[in-house]
């Protein structure tokens, strides 16, 4: 029987009403199904650790309650399993929130599974570490290290489901493993059935970024049209026991599922398509076929699997000093020259108002910014209109807060002491958490699941 995988979120900060039509469709179909919230990236894990350092009860997905509340009761009453890496740096804290929400929805006895073992910070120094292939940096010193989390595979999640969990809370796991686990649990696939595991992983890969497979992050007016993007439907993947899969979305939602939307997501964040590394299987996409089989229905076939890697990727977060940004706008006649003069003045000021090791970057938004080098090569050569609407942006980084604060304050001072007509200054600065990636031996990682025991004293702010 077909198993349905629904996506409720594709990143931390995703639409919090996206899961509602997905769950409605899963209920309407009445087939075995799971709903997955993928809310943890390299950036968000670092942010979670930073939040937890300031406040020990934080560190899980900040939007957790907003994401879950609209659908939790419906899922629990219809047997739709929920899995999410919304535990981030604090899965225990997330379990408390889920338990509280389930109680409010009328399910105080809901079984919540918690996955353990991704946090290897405590014994990192005793492990045999290799650099991840694209990593240039040595392991940061113990004094700057904040966290170390392994990308776990689907096994401990399937273990949580075997324990009867109706909601599975994880920290760091490979994103598509959130989708593979319920498939393995439902179909009873073996952990060395590489082709099926690969198909399940790719079902997860296609759905893990939410709308990115169903018309989100795709529209390019005049070239790639997407209907009703404001109400884009998040994906549902239909998976069969033999690993064949169809990507679709709830009826009546916006967006589209086409060969083009699926192809773009198929290779998203993939490096060598013959060896896409995941904790549970190495996926080979070289024979993959993508075929439209109906309106908003695309079949993906030809996915092959190879034995799982012996090492698992680990992301470490470490203290990266301070970073800040500040911006000021110039518009109308001769705006470009005024923005360029402001940049020149700022550059000159910083040579004697800040230490030489202050790392800075100056963009002129409207001329060249996101494509540019840190040195501003494009900014110097890009043809541009003398008048227009330009925004000078400073970004600065230093180990000490005071120099980042000083640099952004120098931009602020352009209000009165810079060129004519500057306005709209915004500035902020914050601690930076850096990340680097290494590989640990699979045999050094001990991952497992438990059922969460609710403690009565915990209170969730409403």
């Amino acid at each position: 029987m077909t198993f349905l995988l629904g996506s409720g979120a594709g990143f931390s900060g995703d639409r919090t009403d996206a899961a509602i039509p997905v769950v409605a469709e899963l209920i309407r179909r009445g087939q075995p199904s799971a709903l997955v919230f993928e809310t943890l990236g390299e950036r968000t894990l670092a942010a979670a650790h930073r939040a937890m350092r300031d406040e020990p009860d934080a560190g899980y997905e900040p939007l957790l309650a907003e994401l879950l509340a609209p659908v939790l009761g419906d899922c629990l009453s219809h047997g739709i399993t929920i899995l999410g890496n919304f535990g981030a740096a604090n899965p225990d804290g997330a379990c408390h929130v889920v338990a509280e929400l389930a109680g409010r929805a009328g399910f105080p006895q809901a079984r919540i599974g918690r996955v353990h073992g991704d946090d290897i910070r405590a014994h990192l120094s005793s492990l045999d570490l290799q650099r991840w292939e694209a990593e240039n940096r040595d392991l940061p010193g113990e004094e700057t290290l904040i966290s170390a989390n392994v990308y776990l595979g689907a096994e401990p999640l399937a273990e949580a489901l075997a324990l009867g969990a109706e909601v599975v809370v994880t920290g760091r796991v490979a994103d598509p493993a959130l989708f593979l686990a319920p498939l393995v649990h439902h179909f009873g696939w073996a952990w060395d059935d590489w082709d099926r595991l690969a198909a399940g992983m790719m079902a997860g890969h296609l759905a893990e970024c939410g709308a990115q497979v169903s018309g989100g992050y795709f529209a390019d007016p005049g070239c790639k049209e997407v209907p009703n993007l404001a109400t884009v439907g998040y994906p549902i993947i239909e998976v069969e026991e033999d690993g064949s899969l169809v990507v679709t979305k709830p009826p009546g939602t916006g967006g589209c599922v086409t060969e083009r939307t699926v192809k773009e997501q198929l290779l998203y964040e993939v490096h060598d398509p013959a060896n896409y590394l995941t904790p549970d299987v190495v996926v080979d996409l070289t024979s993959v076929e993508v075929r439209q089989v109906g309106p908003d229905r695309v079949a993906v076939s030809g996915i092959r699997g190879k034995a799982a890697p012996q090492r698992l990727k680990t992301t470490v977060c470490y203290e990266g000093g301070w970073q800040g940004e500040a911006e000021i706008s110039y518009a109308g006649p001769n705006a470009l020259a005024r923005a360029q003069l402001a940049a020149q003045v700022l550059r000159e000021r910083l040579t004697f108002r800040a230490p030489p090791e202050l790392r800075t970057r100056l963009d002129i938004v409207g001329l060249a910014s996101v494509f540019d080098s840190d040195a501003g090569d494009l900014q110097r050569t890009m043809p541009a209109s003398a008048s227009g609407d330009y925004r000078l942006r400073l970004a600065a980084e230093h180990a000490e807060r005071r120099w980042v604060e000083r640099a952004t304050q120098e931009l602020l001072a352009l209000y009165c002491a810079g060129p004519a007509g500057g306005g709209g200054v915004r500035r902020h600065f914050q601690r930076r958490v850096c990340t680097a990636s290494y590989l640990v031996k699979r045999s050094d990682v001990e991952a497992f699941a438990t059922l969460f025991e609710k403690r009565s004293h915990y209170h969730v702010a409403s």
Partner: protein
Amino acid sequence: MSPVEPTLVSPSERSPGQPLDDSVTVPLHRLAHARAGDKGDRLNLALFAYDPDHYALLLEQVTEERVLALFAHRGASRVRRYPMPGLAGMNLVIDDVLQGGVNGALNLDGHGKTLSFLLLGLEVPVSSIPRD
């Protein structure tokens, strides 16, 4: 859904043996679509021809060397290209191009998400585009 077709020089408008005018180019954006993804300081760009008949042109024009040159100003150190004929596309993997990556860059776009459109700005000679 199809992109605007570039104006092409008809073979009949040329005298025999005369080479096509390579000075007329169109951006890759007319022929292909792309998406960027990041891991650490590494970027991948998945590029697909709208029309499978243009896949050979992508292979000919979007070489590792040209892509490395396109991203050289950002410090790119290596480009590897993985052709995907079954998808009429390719995966381009570019190392050290993200200025420190999402948690390290001073760039507004630390992920490099916008860079798929830097690739799509690559100019392709009109003469190399196959005619229907």
